């Protein structure tokens, strides 16, 4: 740091620490509002959430929301960050000046134990006794003054979602933080069992009334975890969620596409035809559009996922799904990232950070691209529209049925892949499945909005830069060299992409793919749905968008035999081509090995599935 030091007071660093489900993030949101920054810790991919908090004495501190953990012995990358931050071991991070230990008033015994583990570290420590309203609802009374006296720490009652107790918390912090930085804490070897006993004794002493805690949660669980009603309800929730993701997003996606098209038209009017116009329209705008167009779906999906997480339902879903996941060597926790992957594998892969076992996490990352992401939909829509007749099969439409089969094939493929991976590449004993089922709560609007905002910006930032970069690269591949003056074929065939496609043709011929498909798969590396516009380009249609998708459908009908079309669909169930997924895998696994492995195994699976489909279809005389 070489910033000029004026007569400014040092801004102290304060961290929120606590068990999962203590309401830590709600408290962080209540304290910092929208003034928070979400980033990454250097070297690891754990999210770093920081904000500014003004203390009553005028000082402004940096407030950091550390990942929830049950103890100072970490089990996952998330929890390791919490420990390292507390001990001031993270490079580039200022050491802590104080800790706010957030504890759940309805679960005093367990959460107090962690406070007792933090206390010997010697950092100024303020206890936020959170969710006192829920405790009161359950009939639990806590004598906060007595608690404070017994543990020898300031205790402030808070209700984060209602912004109660925040001022008192600020005052306690201001009183606790000195002018000089405290000494770095040393590792204290606490005896877990002794602390546990002490915590229980203190809890027994300060609880003035012990109500029938969690009565409501237990009643709801009676339905949600019922052996019959539970899975049925989960199925209904998922069905409704996917309906919403696709139907609610339709209109805004149309606006975004129209907006991008209008911008492209404006550019075409303002600039002479040439390389610059092509770069802006086919490179930059097409690249930005390819990312932004999925934002409505991703926001809707995230809204559901955040609501399910905050309400406490996600842990129940993991419980219900654990048996199925155990069958392929994973556990129920993998369910949430895989669910996110139906919108896009990128947020799904980012969500694997909560999985504590590295092998489980890696397996989940590797199978995430098999969940049918929304980028495959445009491809499916065009090919199904062209080749699958719109007739009824019983009460269902044949086209819808084929789409359902493609989704199902992805899920079964993922389960099969996990089964094989857990026995070969990611072999090792399965970690125990141990998950706290938090009490049910209404999701708070502020927490939903802030969660949505931070995830959306993370998606746009990470995926956007990668997709934009790769689209421009592939645009260059598809644009150079330029066709000769007397060209009689579409320009793309003369380009590098076209030549790569030519070279790939012999590889794809055995699975029924023609040269045009091979060429379209090259720019399709940027994002799967780009394959549609690339097909339009090779079949010499100038612009394939919603309006003239029909003409592409007509062209494909005359150009492809049915087995080729079916093989193309089967290819896209496994399709490895998505540079952003590979890039995010490289980030999250911190190695080139796994994205390369991912590409290779998906390619092999896609090739096998397409080949099998093609030859079966030919043999069946289709």
């Amino acid at each position, binding site marked *: 740091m070489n910033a000029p030091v004026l007569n400014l007071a040092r801004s102290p660093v304060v961290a929120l620490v606590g068990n999962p489900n203590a309401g830590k993030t709600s408290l962080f949101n209540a304290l910092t509002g929208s003034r928070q920054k979400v980033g990454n810790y250097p070297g690891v991919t754990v999210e770093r959430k920081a904000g500014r908090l003004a203390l009553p004495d005028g000082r402004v501190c940096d407030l950091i929301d550390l990942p929830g953990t*049950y*103890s100072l*012995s970490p*089990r996952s990358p998330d929890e390791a960050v919490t420990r390292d931050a507390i001990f001031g071991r993270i490079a580039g991070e200022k050491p802590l000046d104080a800790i706010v230990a957030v504890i759940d008033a*309805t*679960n*005093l*015994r*367990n959460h107090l*134990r962690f406070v007792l583990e933090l206390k010997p570290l010697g950092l100024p420590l303020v206890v936020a006794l959170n969710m006192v309203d829920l405790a009161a609802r359950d009939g639990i009374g806590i004598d906060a003054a007595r608690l404070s006296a017994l543990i020898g720490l300031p205790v402030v009652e808070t209700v984060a979602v209602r912004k109660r107790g925040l001022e008192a918390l600020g005052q306690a912090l201001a009183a606790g933080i000195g002018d000089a930085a405290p000494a770095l804490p040393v590792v204290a070897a606490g005896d*877990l*069992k002794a602390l*546990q*006993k002490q915590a*229980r004794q203190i809890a027994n002493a300060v609880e003035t009334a012990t109500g029938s*805690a*969690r009565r409501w*949660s*237990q009643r709801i*669980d009676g339905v949600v*975890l*019922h*052996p*019959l009603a*539970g*899975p049925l309800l989960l199925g209904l929730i998922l069905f409704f969620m996917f309906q919403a993701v696709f139907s609610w997003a339709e209109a805004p996606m149309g606006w975004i596409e129209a907006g991008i098209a209008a911008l492209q038209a404006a550019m075409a009017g303002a600039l002479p035809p040439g390389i610059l116009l092509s770069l802006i329209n086919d490179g930059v705008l097409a690249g930005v559009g390819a990312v932004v167009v999925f934002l409505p779906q991703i926001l809707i999906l995230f809204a559901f996922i955040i609501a399910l997480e905050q309400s406490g339902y996600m*842990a129940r879903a*993991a*419980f*219900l799904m*654990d*048996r*199925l996941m*155990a069958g392929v060597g994973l556990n*129920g926790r993998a369910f949430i990232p895989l669910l996110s992957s139906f919108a896009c594998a990128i947020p799904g892969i980012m969500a694997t950070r909560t999985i504590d076992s590295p092998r489980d996490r890696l397996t989940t990352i590797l199978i995430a691209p098999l969940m049918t992401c929304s980028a495959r939909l445009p491809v499916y829509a065009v090919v199904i529209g062209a080749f699958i007749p719109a007739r009824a099969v019983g009460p269902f439409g044949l086209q819808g049925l084929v789409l359902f089969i493609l989704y199902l094939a992805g899920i079964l493929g993922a389960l099969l892949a996990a089964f094989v991976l857990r026995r070969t590449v990611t072999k090792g004993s399965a970690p*125990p*499945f*141990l*998950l*706290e*089922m938090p009490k049910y709560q209404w999701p708070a609007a502020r927490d939903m909005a802030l969660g949505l905002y931070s995830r959306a910006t993370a998606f746009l930032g990470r995926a956007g830069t990668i997709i934009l970069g790769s689209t421009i690269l592939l645009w260059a591949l598809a644009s150079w060299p330029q066709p000769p003056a007397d060209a009689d074929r579409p320009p793309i065939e003369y380009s590098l992409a076209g030549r790569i496609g030519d070279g790939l043709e012999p590889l794809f011929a055995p699975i029924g793919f023609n040269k045009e498909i091979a060429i379209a798969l090259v720019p399709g590396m940027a994002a799967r749905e780009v394959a549609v516009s690339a097909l339009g380009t090779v079949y010499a249609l100038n612009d394939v968008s919603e309006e003239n998708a029909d003409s592409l459908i007509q062209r494909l009908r005359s150009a492809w035999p049915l087995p080729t079309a079916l093989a193309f669909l089967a290819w896209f169930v496994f399709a490895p081509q998505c540079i952003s997924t590979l890039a995010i895998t490289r980030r999250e696994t911190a190695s080139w090995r796994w994205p390369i492995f991912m590409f290779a195994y998906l390619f092999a699976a896609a090739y096998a599935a397409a080949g099998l489909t093609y030859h079966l279809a030919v043999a069946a005389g289709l």
Partner: protein
Amino acid sequence: MPSTAVPRTINALAAGEVALIAAIDPAGQAPDAAIRLCELGFDEGVPVEILHRAPFGGDPIAVRVGNMVVALRRDMAGLIEVAA
């Protein structure tokens, strides 16, 4: 230490039966799992009760321990002995 004949684990609890935890992993076969259970509030003398069994085979189970509900698989539940 009372010397009971056959130690009973959580898995043997009947529906609605509340029992006190007698020991966790007394044989020391899974020390890491024992620590994790302890962190989640499983400790000697704490009352436990099976609330739910997952569909399709009854594994995992949801156990009330103190004021918390924790989901765990039966193999891990087998480490937790309860008083008869």
